[in-house]
């Protein structure tokens, strides 16, 4: 049984990675040869250009546009989907979760077909659950345990100041100082 689940998971992860994810540019966007702002510009894609997503690296997404060669665009200049009404679900790890959930491997993630909904109605009708709060407190970790997890993934601290709202907020209509906001 376990083997079967493993095979299903394996097959699923392959099919997930093989499924092309599409997106459209939400503004005129420079297609760069490398994921850097000073890399060579291959072509300028107009707004609403369809692209196939290949991978993401930091603030850049590698894409294959319908009309041009593979290159990199600013991640935040892309809207997932085809521009038509959004598709259902995401390509996250959810599918894996769901298979394991519905399998008969005795999982305890959830007992029902669906988890409970957190909506306006269920919140209004909720009664406090101090027992579950106690359970939550039982999972607390020390600073040392937290740092151990960080170092095992080789996460290293950076010094970064908070950023101000500034006048470049798009809703204010002001243009960002950098040319990036425009491309």
């Amino acid at each position, binding site marked *: 049984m376990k083997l079967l*689940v493993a095979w299903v998971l394996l097959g699923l992860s392959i099919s997930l990675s093989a499924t092309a994810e599409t997106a459209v540019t939400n503004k005129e966007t420079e297609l760069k040869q490398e994921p850097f702002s000073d890399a060579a510009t291959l072509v300028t894609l107009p707004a609403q250009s369809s692209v196939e997503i290949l991978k993401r690296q930091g603030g850049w997404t590698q894409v294959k546009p319908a009309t041009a060669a593979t290159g990199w665009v600013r991640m935040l200049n892309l809207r997932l989907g085809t521009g038509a009404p959004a598709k259902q679900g995401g390509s996250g*790890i959810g599918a*894996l979760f769901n298979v*394991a959930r519905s399998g008969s491997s005795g999982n305890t993630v959830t007992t029902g077909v669906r*988890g409970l909904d957190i909506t306006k109605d269920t919140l209004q009708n*909720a009664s406090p659950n101090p027992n579950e709060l106690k359970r939550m407190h039982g999972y607390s*970790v020390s600073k040392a345990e*937290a740092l151990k997890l960080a170092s095992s993934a080789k*996460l290293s*601290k950076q010094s970064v100041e908070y950023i101000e709202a500034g006048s470049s907020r798009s809703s204010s209509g002001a243009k960002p100082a950098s040319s990036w906001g425009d491309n």
Partner: protein
Amino acid sequence: MKRTYWQLTTLLVGALLTSQASAFGGLNLDLNKLISAGKNLNEASKDISEPEEISIGEGMASVLLGTAPLVKSDTLQTYVNQVGRYLSLQTERPDLPWHFGVLDSDSVNAFATPGGHIFITSGLLRKMHSEAELAGVLSHEIAHVLRKHHLVAMKKAGGMGFLTDVASIAVDQKGGGGYAGKELSKNLISGMKEILVRGLDKDDEYEADRMGVVIATRAGYDSYGLPAVLQMLDGLSNTSDVSLLFSTHPAPESRMDTLSGVMQSKFDHYQGQSVNDRFRRLMTNSAKK
């Protein structure tokens, strides 16, 4: 002057609502007392103490846990606590009693309550690809705690009634209490629910986005974890799973645009990590468990 007028209006509206509540719910509230307390508005508006903040947050966390329990996976809960606690160490309030929890719900959402309780639903977690995305969302929620957004909102909405209720928590604490094991007033609970249902000011959400990106970057994660989650949310249909999130936050597209405007190329030189493998392994294992 404007502020005084506004406070008075809040007080009167509050009093009206309260009198209505007493008509329907049989609550025994003294209207005169409430109005006379208005004289001391300035005194009462002073900051809520940290122990009070924590007690309010525990109560609100307990209400959230009343809608959905925690996912029954020790591994997953511990993991999310480790990631969250590490992020909290990058902030100006590293010594709050931070607690993190994964709610067993298909609804796609994350929550913060005052004093350091942070929640993410399994529905949102399942749509993520990496630890950096998880870190981005937890950092956004941590920012709400740092900036006391919920407390300010509750004070605004609840006026004197809220502050009176908080004062009663303080009295109980002197008696050796804390939240655990005692009843919070019905008013306080309904005030908490009101904020959860209505959401925070849009500017609070934009601020939490900006701070969230910075906190995750400080921790060494890919700065674009939170933007990636917003991009994912932007691609979802407006089903019941996202209805609360969408109705209590600015549209994902506006949040992406706003972040794009302030981040510009400032974060390009941080070589943050996305930490995909561990995340994927943890998620798959806790699902199989």
